[in-house]
């Protein structure tokens, strides 16, 4: 399988006043197309920083990062915006939907910045919303939905542009067990359809779904376990 993400000796440091705090201390990762990867680690381990860099929201202090054979570690910010728009879909613990926009508009947001026509946006948004089972909720505001439904809207928004990777940061962290399982089911389905998925979590139950688990502690990769390939639709 083709290499999608290649990270070498990645370092990230934060300056807090005069002190420099290292967050990543030289990380090497390779993620192939179609893989389902979990990044695990305790809080403060650097896993969120890693996700932000992989998602082009942040830039590394040093090291190499290429996405689809294109080096992104030295890209300009406007180019990174285009990459976030086209190649990456984000799903967050707190959903991060725009509260004053309805479900459909929220899903259309990346398409708006992608320059799609209004009609095309509407068609694409409706299509992905039906895939996550929310065709009946197009005009609802996020506040009128349950947590699980909100996360499904967020997933729809993440996949509407058909990105190369889906990055999820504790996507079940704010959900009850049932809704959480629903969401994990959707990720498994997306994986089965061939999407590349990276989930950041501290929950080993969530990590079990993945093909590969990257354990990160103190900004360093401690171990990479290849889990036994489980059936994509197996839940509970």
């Amino acid at each position, binding site marked *: 399988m083709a290499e999608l993400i290649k990270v070498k000796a990645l370092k990230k440091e934060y300056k807090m006043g005069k002190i420099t705090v290292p967050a990543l201390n030289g990380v090497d990762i390779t993620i192939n197309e179609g893989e389902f990867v979990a990044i695990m680690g305790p809080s403060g381990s650097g896993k969120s920083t890693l996700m932000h860099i992989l998602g082009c929201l942040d830039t590394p202090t040093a090291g190499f990062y290429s996405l689809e054979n294109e080096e992104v570690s030295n890209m300009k910010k406007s180019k990174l*915006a285009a990459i*976030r728009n086209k190649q990456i879909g984000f799903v967050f613990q707190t959903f991060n939907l725009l509260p004053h926009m309805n479900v459909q508009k929220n899903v259309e947001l990346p398409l708006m*910045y992608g320059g799609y026509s209004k009609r095309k946006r509407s068609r694409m948004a409706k299509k992905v919303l039906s895939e996550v089972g929310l065709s009946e909720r197009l005009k609802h505001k996020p506040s009128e939905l349950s947590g699980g439904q909100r996360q499904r809207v967020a997933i729809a928004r993440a996949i509407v542009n058909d990105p190369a990777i889906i990055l999820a940061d504790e996507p079940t962290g704010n959900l009850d067990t049932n809704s959480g399982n629903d969401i994990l089911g959707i990720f498994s389905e997306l994986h089965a359809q061939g999407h590349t998925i990276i989930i950041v979590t501290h929950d080993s139950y969530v990590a079990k779904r993945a093909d590969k688990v990257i354990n990160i502690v103190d900004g360093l990769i401690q171990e990479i376990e290849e889990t036994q390939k489980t059936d994509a639709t197996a839940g509970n």
Partner: protein
Amino acid sequence: MAISLKESIIVGFSDFWSRKVRSLVTIMGIVLGTMSIIVVLALMKGINAQTLAWMMERGGLSKISVYENWNYDNPLNLRDYFTWRELELIRSLVPEAKYFNPQEREWVKFAYEGKEYRSAVYGVLPDFKYIEEWDADQGRFISEFDVSQSNDVVVIGTEIKNELFGSKDPIGEFITVHIRRLQVIGVMKHRFMKNSGPVGNENGLAYMNRRAFVPLSTMIHKGTGEDNIGSFVVKAQDAESAPALREKLESIILNLRQGKPVFRVESAQEEAEQMAKNQRTFQVIFFVISIISLLVGGIVIANIMLATIQERTREIGIRITVGARRIDIFIQFLVQTIVVTIIGGILGIIVGLSLLDLVSKFIDIKLIAGPEMIIIALAVSAGIGLLSGLIPAVIASKMDPVKALRYE
């Protein structure tokens, strides 16, 4: 690739609409500022129109007046009046003048059948009626023949007629002017112009209705018996040639009086220009005050936009995450501010225009609206939006998405 301007405007409008109360409070400053710009501009236009109308009523812009300079204390005791011969000389030196009328004024008592009235009588030539564009309404005005014969005739203003005759027909009657009996040959047309000033008579031209006119020759030969004429009035071919003619007359008269300014020579055209200039100073001051109030409104908007951006930090983070570039965020907030100020501007224009009649009633000057005012008001309010939206938009566009997403 990028979010379009139209998109930004739609986002701006929906943001405005989703926070109606706050938006309305935000734009109050702009509404009031734009409103005052409209009122001030309409007031300027009204005052200008009124000044021009007043000048026209006083005989038009081609009129030039020569009279004693009260500000000159005349140490050499030069003659502060003209002789008839001097006037004939002056007249011959300005053949380009269309009309020429020397006049001499005396304060006298008018009497008729036991009734008395004190007022001014003017000795004039027939050109008077062309210069002042003011003729007899009843009977006739003084003729060349009256002047050559020094006839004992008088033309009276409506106020004198009312005081002495009431509703009786005065034509052909004899009245006593000072000590001489003169026959009334005409009554001047009643002059009226609505007075807009805060004080004074309702009729701004009432003083003209209190005047009476006799042939200049009658006054010199049968009245005072002195060949001294205090002032004269000339009318140029048109308003444009009036300033040149005024200059020429001034130098002729200075030559007659050893170069000393014993007389003043004033052209209505220049007077009007001077008045317009004086008014312009006030207009600029008013306008600047309106702009300052708009700037204050702009500062309020900038402040609220900064608060809004703080509140919407997370939203900005989300937008950046899904692919918004800095320029997209910048345009979104800048356009939003401009949308807000333009809405404020439009409301201000509507309120301002609807206030014009009310203001007119208060200050008794007709305020005149014009399309250029709407354009100016809109341009200024959009400009204020641009200025006050710039800094908040830059701050929004520079946000770090990672921090913005964590913002609570």
